[in-house]
């Protein structure tokens, strides 16, 4: 068995305490929520923190509050994926998010894993998610300790894949992330839109400093309206098995339809095809403000599929994943428009 290396565990009871600990231990410390991503990575020495700042005892991270005035939801970063998947109000108001959370891994991991951890999930690559000895024998790569990318040797940057199921949904729903960091004795906070939180660089994929703590996620309201008017949203995941597998392709969609059925607004975000969720602006433009004819949908699918430039660093062959993009996006559209 690979064992966890030794570390000191801290259990702060407030955000202030947590960020203060991070300030104190600096690079030697990391935040840990459910640990379902971090612990396997520590066993394989992608990370070697001496101090872990546990987030499970901080009440603010567990809030799940719908505003009185109906302007949206504040979701604490520490809420478990199972709760996100099963909470009746999330199921009703943000079905795409509930679905994405429900499709992560397996029940045990969804009980431990948090939404915050999922949104900060490390990028993945066949050459990176390996043990130390495995990586060392081949030679370390760009993402960690090395200078070559084994997937594309000429690439100046790491191409590891953003593999979070919930991240594309957050981008599609234009969520905002609230981050806290130490500022001397005090706590500094800032708000970042989800789309700016992610960067398309596998080694440096979050617009977040190491000492920033993701406190909560703020989701605007989406009225679903009746009889096909209002917002419809969905998340669809391509994976080999019905459990455990990370997405090979995730498609988050949100459409607002007019009374006449035309598309008023379209949001299309692809997951697991780049180092960040990719918003399909062009496809959105094609659908925006027009009737949803088969031709336009097909054009939008093609525009979206163009974004998917899979590399040989995840499950399934390149050519398959390339082929799948348009077929799968078509199905995703069909599914959401039927909802």
């Amino acid at each position: 068995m690979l064992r966890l290396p030794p570390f000191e565990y801290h259990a702060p009871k407030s955000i202030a305490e947590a960020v203060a600990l991070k300030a104190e231990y600096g690079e030697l410390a990391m935040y840990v929520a459910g640990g379902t991503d971090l612990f396997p990575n520590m066993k394989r020495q992608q990370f070697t923190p001496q101090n872990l700042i546990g987030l499970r005892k901080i009440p603010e991270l567990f809030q799940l509050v719908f505003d009185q005035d109906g302007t949206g939801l504040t979701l604490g970063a520490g809420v478990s994926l199972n709760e996100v998947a099963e909470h009746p109000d999330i199921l009703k108001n943000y079905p795409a998010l509930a679905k994405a959370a429900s499709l992560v891994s397996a029940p045990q991991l969804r009980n431990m894993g948090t939404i915050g951890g999922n949104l900060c999930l490390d990028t993945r690559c066949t050459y990176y998610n390996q043990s130390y000895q495995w990586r060392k024998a081949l030679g370390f790569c760009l993402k960690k300790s090395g200078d070559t990318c084994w997937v594309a040797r000429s690439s100046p940057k790491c191409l590891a894949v953003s593999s979070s199921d919930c991240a594309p949904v957050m981008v599609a729903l234009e969520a905002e992330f609230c981050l806290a960091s130490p500022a001397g004795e005090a706590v500094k906070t800032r708000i970042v839109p989800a789309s700016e939180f992610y960067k398309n660089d596998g080694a440096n994929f979050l617009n977040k400093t190491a000492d920033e703590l993701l406190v909560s996620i703020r989701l605007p309201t989406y009225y679903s309206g009746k009889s096909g008017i209002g917002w419809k949203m969905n998340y669809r995941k391509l994976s080999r098995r019905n459990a455990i597998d990370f997405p090979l392709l995730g498609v988050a969609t949100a459409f607002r339809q007019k009374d006449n059925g035309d598309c008023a607004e379209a949001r299309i975000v692809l997951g697991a095809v780049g180092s960040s969720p990719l918003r399909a602006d062009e496809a959105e433009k094609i659908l925006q403000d027009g009737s949803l004819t088969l031709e336009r949908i097909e054009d939008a699918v093609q525009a979206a599929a163009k974004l998917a430039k899979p590399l040989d660093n995840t499950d399934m062959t390149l050519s398959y994943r390339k082929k799948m993009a348009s077929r799968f996006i078509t199905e995703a559209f069909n599914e959401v428009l039927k909802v």
Partner: protein
Amino acid sequence: MKEFSAVGKRIPKTDAPDKVTGRATYGQDFKLPGMLHGAIRYSDHAHARILNIDTSKAEALEGVKCVVTADDVPETRFGFYKDNMPLKKDVVRSHRDEIAGVVAVNEMIARQAVKLIKIEYEILPAVFNVADAMAENAPLIQPNRDSNHLITNTYNHGDVEQGEAESDVVVEVTCKLPYVNHASMETCVIVAKFDHSQNLTLWSTTQIPFLLQKDLGAALGMSPKNIRILQPTIGGAFGRELDIYPYHPIAAIMAKKAQVPVRLCFSREEEFRAGPQRQPVEVTIRAGAKNNGDLTFRDVSMTLDVGAYVSWGSTTPMVMMETTASFYRVPHVRFKADCVYTNNLITGAMRGYGNPQSSFYVESAMDMLAEKLGMDPIQFRIQNANQPNTITEQGLKITSCGLEDCLKALAERAETKLEPAAQPHLKRGRGVGGTLNVGGGARIYRSDGCGATVKVDDFGHVSLITGSTEIGQGSETVLAQMVAEILSVPVDDVRVINSDTDVKMWDVGVHASRTTFIAGNAACLAAKEALGQIFETASELLGASPDSLKAENGQIIAPDGKSVSLSKVVRSRHFRSGGQMVFGQAFYDPPTELVDKDSYHGNISPAYGFGMQMADVEVDTETGQVRVLKLICAKDIGRAINPMAVEGQIEGGAQMGLGYALSEEVVIKEGKVMNPNFVDYRLFTSADMPEIENIMIESNDPEGPFGAKGIGEMGSSCVAAAVTNAIYDAVGVRLTQPPMTPERVLAALDTKAAG
């Protein structure tokens, strides 16, 4: 027939509660006072000359007790081609090669220290497939050999040319079967300890305690009589531990140098890297039939990449030839298998032992023939099915045989047609596949026997001391049921002791679906002897002749209705002048023979099991994804000693078989495993499992204990065949390479669409 009290009952495995609640002491949990921990340093290259090994930094690390290298041991070789050694000195031949080991106060430090060992290599050219390995001027992997070609196995009966001339239809298909891993929940563990007299005690997850004594003796240059092997609770093995692997002697070498007990426990990655895999095969089968549906011939040739060292994978052709020659009645058969060394992974035994591979190509060809003949695939198989009390051309003495009954049961189910799929891009299909498996061991060694002792104590408690090994298959429960049946005591009163080579009598190991049959027969014989002693004493107490007595519910009953309790009989026999204990002993070796070493003819098993499965699948023609909707398993099991345990074997086998069919593959690139973990190596999960229907055909084997035959392997062997035939039925493309992944299915569909 007398009704059974224990046999045939659905009893949860006796060890289940402890396993489920975490109380069982697995090898992983096992600790000894003063025990230290070991870790192994493997090669960084697929083929290289070792120029220098510098262990100084590892030795200097705090917490490190010692480092071992080949210099610490006399040069020994082991394996049945004597091509392996515990620690490699001059040349490494694959990424799995062990170069050094570290003993430290904990596993963390040991693994950390291993990384500090500096090895200088001169990289040598390597070969990663059979063609390259066989090319002229290919680098030689094993010294002292002329080429990388290891061995050719050939088998013949009849005259294939004549068979082909008599055929009205002929088909040919080439299949490629992948590497898969046993993926036992528990990884390999070993704890080694020397006493002051240099006796070695080993706690090991081995499946072959007695053979390991011998092999380990050879690997360590010591006498097997000084080696004692104990087996803790074993968390699955599936054939993985059917051989000696370098880590066994390495643990002993570490313990010897450290002078304290040392524990070595594989990580999951090591399981993939250094453990054996199921044998991959590239095989072409030609087969024919007459218009009336009779089979005419089979002609099979295959190549096997056995890796850099020989283990059991190289012997899987023996089983594949058995299926090729004897599964269904075929008058003319030719079989040829070439085993070749490469710088890849080693291959070993794994559940089914060649049958998952042979079932796949034989049953693919059967469906292709049926289609050409325009026959129903099940009727075609019924027409050619093996029959009871026949001897195959190869010399297999088939006694009980429920193959036709299995097929008829499936034919009955097949009358209910598949519901069409909900959407036009989803297509449904149905396919069958079957297997012939030894049903009670296989005589690969001169002995295929097992010893047993049954003793009854003064309180009426029964111990069965059996040579056999429990690896999670449930043998403790079914053996207890058989002994309980004979002695007429509750199953709970029987404890099975099976974990110490100093205590138990010899057994060849847990493999070849043999434990219920062979260890079962041994246990029954021993129990009957004990019962004879009980009757002898009871007859004195009850004043009735021994053969007029019967045992029931822990009582011995005379014809006149008088009775005495079993425990009282034992005490009466024991506590008297010249007293005796109640104990029966037996060694059962089945009436079988070694196959002829050149012709491979001979009857290696006392019974043969047959199994058929029918899969209903739905293929998504857009994504290539295959969903199995239902799996019906019809198995000739002789008799179900414990129907619940049989279901467990069949359903567990189905899970393994579905993984082989659809999702599992050890991916290697230049000899290096790319997916050595359970995220990337894709086991079939519970969320992927279809509905399973079990049909148990009880053919009541004449030699089997209570008529039972082995069932351990059959469940997994024929799933891939049934699935590939079902995919063909659904979408008209024949997949020849498991796992039949979405990309392979889609590629086949695209090729078909392109014409």
